[in-house]
C-alpha cells in the first residue's frame, strides 16, 4: 500500500539532493557568471553589421566602394552613406560618411547578402549599451571599420570563403591583365615586324 504523503517526502528528497549536490558537483551549475565568464558564441551568431578592411590602415584598406546598394536594400533604412569627393569635386570610390543606426537595424543581414564587394559583414559584439538613446547608437565609420583578421576570428568559415573568392578574383584579374599585356605585346611585336618587313618589301 502506498502510504499517503510519501510523494511529498520523495519530492523533498529530490530538492534536497539538488540543493546539496549543487555545492558538491560543480557541473550541476550551468549558469555562466557573465562578466567574468564569456560564452563561446557559435560561428553563425550575429549582432549588427560592420565594415571589413584589408591590411593595417582602415581608411586605405577599406573594401567599401560606396556603391550604396546596401543603403537602398536595407529594409528599415538604417544605413546612411555619403560618397567621398576629391579636391576637384570628382566622386571617388570611397564613402566619406558611413553610419548605421543600430537602434533601428534589425540584424537581418540583407546588407551583407547584397554587397558585391564583400565589404559589409555581421559582427558578434553584443555589449553595445550606452547612456544615451540616440547619438551613441549611431555607429560611424570609426566604430564600424574592423580588420579582416577580426573577421577571420569571429566567422572563420565564412571569412575563408570570402578570402578564397577575393583571391580568385584577384588571380583572374591578374591573368586578364597579363593576357591583355601579352596581347598588347604581341600586337606591338607584330606591328614592329610589319614595319620591319615593309621597307624590305619597298626596297
Amino acid at each position, binding site marked *: 500500500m502506498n502510504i499517503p504523503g510519501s510523494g*511529498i517526502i520523495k519530492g523533498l528528497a529530490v530538492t534536497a539532493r539538488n540543493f546539496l549536490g549543487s*555545492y558538491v558537483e560543480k557541473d550541476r551549475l550551468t549558469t555562466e557568471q557573465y562578466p567574468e565568464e564569456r560564452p563561446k558564441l557559435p560561428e553563425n551568431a550575429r549582432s549588427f553589421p560592420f565594415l571589413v578592411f584589408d591590411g593595417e590602415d582602415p581608411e586605405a584598406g577599406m573594401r567599401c566602394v560606396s556603391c550604396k546598394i546596401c543603403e537602398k536594400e536595407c529594409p528599415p533604412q538604417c544605413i546612411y552613406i555619403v560618397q567621398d569627393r576629391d579636391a576637384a569635386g570628382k566622386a571617388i570610390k570611397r564613402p566619406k560618411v558611413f553610419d548605421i543606426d543600430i537602434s533601428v537595424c534589425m540584424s537581418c543581414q540583407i546588407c551583407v547578402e547584397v554587397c558585391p564587394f564583400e565589404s559589409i559583414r555581421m559582427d558578434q559584439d553584443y555589449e553595445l549599451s550606452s547612456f544615451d538613446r540616440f547619438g551613441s547608437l549611431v555607429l560611424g565609420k570609426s566604430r564600424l571599420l574592423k580588420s579582416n583578421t577580426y573577421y577571420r576570428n569571429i566567422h572563420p568559415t565564412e571569412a575563408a570563403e570570402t578570402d578564397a573568392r577575393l583571391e580568385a578574383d584577384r588571380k583572374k584579374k591578374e591573368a586578364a591583365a597579363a593576357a591583355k599585356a601579352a596581347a598588347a605585346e604581341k600586337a606591338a611585336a607584330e606591328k614592329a615586324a610589319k614595319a620591319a618587313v615593309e621597307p624590305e618589301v619597298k626596297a
Partner: protein
Amino acid sequence: MDLLERAPIELKSWFLNLLGSFGVPQGILSVLSAVIIIGTVIGVFLGLFALMSVMERKILARAQNRYGPNRVGFFRWRLFGLFQPVADGIKMITKEDLVPRTSDRAVHFLAPVVMMIPALLVLAILPYGRDMVPAELDAGILYFFAVGAGTEVAVFMAGWASNNKYSVLGAMRAIAQMISYEIPLVMAAIIAAMISGSLSPSAIVAAQGGFAWGFVPQWFVLTPWGFTAGLLFYIAALAESNRSPFDLPEGESELVAGHLTEYSGFKYATFFMAEYIGMFAVCGLLVTLFLGGWQAPLPFLTIIPSWCWFFGKVCFVAFTMVWVRATLPRLRIDHMLAFAWKFLLPMSFAAFLSAACWHYAGRGPLAWLLSLAIVGIPYLILGTAFTNRFAISRRTYQFSE
C-alpha cells in the same frame, strides 16, 4: 557561559544603571527599558527578514541548480551577495508610489500599516530565551491568535481599497484560506496548551524541559500526538503566512499578485516585511509550542545560550518552509479548502484525542502506543481516501472524442 546566557539582560540593566547613576528618574528608566526591549526585538526580526529575503532566493536557486543572487556586495567585496537586501531596500524606497485613481485612498494607505502592527505585536509574547519574554502574559497563546487575526482585516482592506477585480478576488481567497486554516492552527496550539496545563508560552516551554534517561529531550514533537499536532500547526502556519504551496491569494498565474496588485514602492515593501515577520512569529510559536522553545536538544549543549537555540530553531523551521516552497506546486483553491476542512480538521481532533489519552494513560510506553494508534489509523484512512479522491487520472473530454 552563564555570562553569555544572560548577556542581553545584563547589558540592558548595566545601561539603565549607568543612566540611573546620572540621576535619570525611575519613571523614564522603566519606559526606556521597554523601549530597549522593543527596539531589540524589532531590530532582530528586521535583520532576520533581511537575511531571509536573500537566503530564500539563494536556497531556492540552489534547489534548482542555480547560484542565486551573488553580486551585491560592499564596493569591491562581493560577500556572496549578502548586501542584496540593501539594494532591494533602496530600490523599493525610490520607486514611485502608485495609488489607483478610483481607489479608497485612506484605506489603501492604512492597509500596510494595519498589516504590520499585528505582525509586530505578536512578537511580544514569545520566550526568546531563559527569562527573556518581553511581555509575560498568562494567556499569551490566546493573545497571539487574537492579535494575529488582525492581518486578515488588513488583507481584505488592501483588496477592497484597490478597487481592482484581481485584488478583491485575491483578498477573498486570502480570507477564505486564513479562516479555514486558523482552526487547525488553533486546535494544534490548544493541544500543547492542554498538555502543559497553561496558556502561557513560558510555562509551555518549561513543560518541555529536562531530559528523559538523561539525554532524550522532552519536546512535544517527539511524541505521536505532538508530532501530529506540530505538523498540523506547520501546515496551517504555511497557509496562514500565505506561503507556497498555499500562496493562492498571490497566485501570479491567475490573479497577478492578488491583494498586492495595486501596491508598489514602500507600501509593497511594508506588506512584504509584515508577511515575513508574521511568518517568523508563527515559526517562533511553533518552536515554542512543539520544538521545546529555547531548550537545548542535548544536555551538554546547554552551554550554548538559550536565545541562540531559539533563533537557531526558528531559522531551521524557516529553512524547511523555503525547502517546501522549492518542492511543492501551488494547490487549487477547492483542493486547498477541502484539505483544510476534510483532512486537517479531523486530524487535529484525532491529535487532540490522542494527547488526552496519552495524558490519562500515564505518559508511559502504553500511552505512547495508544496515542500513536489514535493518530496513525485516522491518518491512514483519511490520507488514502484523500489521495484517491484527488488522484491524477487520464482526463477524458466529453465532446472531443
